[in-house]
């Protein structure tokens, strides 16, 4: 029997708190899960620093990847024998679902920004490079690894296949919303996925939703909206992200200025040089990063030492609401005052912005980029969701932004009350009719 068709003697299952069970019968999938590149995902948290806000959020990219695979498997099961669906693409879809986040590194968001990396680029490299994953995919058939890579990169010719993993209602989002809600313990991220799966239909090059399932989709869109603002952009999590980014900036700065680290940052050197190859990238996981942060608390550099101590012991920055347009002058004065106080504003005075777009639509003739969610009406017409749903219409295309100014209130409080610099800093920070927000 060809490798691509090989089945395990007995179906394997992973117990899963979100989907109850993740089922594996294909030998290829079982072999991919066993590779070191996939097992590495156990050591990368799905939500980075969110566990400092929601202590349950310790789940990993490994859990999520299995979840996306399971959802795609259930979608394909429902699609079998339906027109427009080509079951020859089944294994390709399952592999792409399982491997779609393979290139994520530790604390992806901060690492990518500071070291100018792109996890999608590393996903491609792992799939196409000299790796265990590549060997398995090429055993399926020559060129199969390239197909999997194209699906994940959204450049595969069959857009229906791409849309299962990447669209406004895809397996990736359906898994992470439910999984993140479960592990953070919040009640917002829940929706009736079983109902959505039952009303999904393949039509030409897209997945559409039977109009009778519209309310389940409304619930999904609102869940996404709530999760972004209640969990993903939580100001305390952003405080931890700010400190994490500043640690990485500081360590890079010290390296570039020939600082002698007590602990040689061997795992970081190619990152500091912005010349990271795949082998270096795969070696760095969150356990390694935490080890360095723990050790750097003993460094002589006071900024690196302080920032690491803050991150490891959750001594986070406080914040105030901030409008860069109306408060530019205050910000410039604060910047100078921090310098006068001997507090480096490059590391200790940080504006952070968050934005989200809950659902966007594309209508023929308009120039949006996101493919919309289409409803399949009883007369077989397709209608864009926000034209039919008042709830979705009310949030469609509505973007929300939020700016916050982060700073170490504890350092400011330790300054002498007689110090005029302190007085002025507090006037600027407290004088906006708003108290400094605790991040406790």
């Amino acid at each position, binding site marked *: 029997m060809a490798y691509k068709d090989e089945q395990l003697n007995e179906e394997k299952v992973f117990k899963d708190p979100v989907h109850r069970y993740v089922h594996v019968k294909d030998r290829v999938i079982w072999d991919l899960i066993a590779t070191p590149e996939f097992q590495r995902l156990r050591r990368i948290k799905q939500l980075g620093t969110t566990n400092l806000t929601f202590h349950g959020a310790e789940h990993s990219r490994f859990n999520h990847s299995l979840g996306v695979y399971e959802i795609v498997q259930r979608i394909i099961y429902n699609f079998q024998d339906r027109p427009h669906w080509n079951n020859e693409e089944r294994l390709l879809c399952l592999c792409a679902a399982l491997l779609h986040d393979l290139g994520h590194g530790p604390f992806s968001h901060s690492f990518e920004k500071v070291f100018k990396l792109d996890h999608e680029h590393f996903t491609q490299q792992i799939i196409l490079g000299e790796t265990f994953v590549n060997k398995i995919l090429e055993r399926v058939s020559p060129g199969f690894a390239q197909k999997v890579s194209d699906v994940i990169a959204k450049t595969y010719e069959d857009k229906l296949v791409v849309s299962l993993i990447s669209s406004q209602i895809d397996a990736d989002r359906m898994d992470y919303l439910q999984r993140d809600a479960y592990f953070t313990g919040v009640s917002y991220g829940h929706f009736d996925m079983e109902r959505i799966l039952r009303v999904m239909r393949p039509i030409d090059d897209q997945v559409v939703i039977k109009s009778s399932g519209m309310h389940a989709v409304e619930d999904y869109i609102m869940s996404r909206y709530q999760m972004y603002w209640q969990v993903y952009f939580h100001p305390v999590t952003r405080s931890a992200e700010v400190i994490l980014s500043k640690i990485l900036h500081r360590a890079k700065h010290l390296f570039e200025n020939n600082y002698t680290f007590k602990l040689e940052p061997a795992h970081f050197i190619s990152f500091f040089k912005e010349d990271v190859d795949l082998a270096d990238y795969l070696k760095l996981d969150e356990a390694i990063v935490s080890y360095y942060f723990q050790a750097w608390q003993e460094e002589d550099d006071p900024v690196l030492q302080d920032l690491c101590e803050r991150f490891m012991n959750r001594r986070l920055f406080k914040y105030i609401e901030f409008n860069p347009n109306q408060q530019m002058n205050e910000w410039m004065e604060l910047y100078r005052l921090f310098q006068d106080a001997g507090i480096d504003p490059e590391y200790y005075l940080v504006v952070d912005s968050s934005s989200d777009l809950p659902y966007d639509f594309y209508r023929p003739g308009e*120039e949006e*980029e996101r493919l919309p969610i289409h409803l399949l009406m009883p007369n077989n017409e397709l209608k864009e969701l926000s034209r039919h749903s008042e709830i979705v219409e009310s949030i469609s295309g509505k973007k929300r*932004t939020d700016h916050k100014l982060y700073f170490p209130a504890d350092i400011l409080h330790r300054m002498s009350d007689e110090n005029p610099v302190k007085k002025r800093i507090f006037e600027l920070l407290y004088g906006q009719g708003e108290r400094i927000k605790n991040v406790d």
Partner: protein
Amino acid sequence: MLTNHAKLMQFFAVAKEVTGRKKLQKMIYILQKCHVPFEEKYQFHFYGPYSEELTLRMEELCNLGFVAEEKEDKSNYYQYNYKITGDGLAFLNQFALDMPDMEKQVELLQAKSSRFLELVSTMLYFDDLSKTEAAEKIHIVKPKQNYTADEINEAWTFIDSLQKNPSH
């Protein structure tokens, strides 16, 4: 603070006005590929390379009053046009920004249609492929656009001309 926002404002200070969201997306991507240090992350989408980060950052710039968005009714669709505002220029003037001169490249890009820039940006997205492979890939990922061989050749010539006018 807001360095990436300031880089975009610098672009608008040079471009004066950009007509259409798709054109803006492609212009920034093409400039990135010409080594102008915009940091917005791009992925392949419906119309080729697209940056969600750029969309959201533009929204932030509009909310802050640094960039003005004008919705223009083109009878069968809406087009969104963007211009830097007085507040935006004032903010930019307070910023010590080290950006290369991109005037010539912006001028070349402004003169082209969004459809053509979609083709150019898609070709640049596949710049690791040979010219023949890239042309094949364009027909695979954009079958509905029906790009002709002439358009693809014109796009290669255009890319050469952009690279002959590097940013300083």
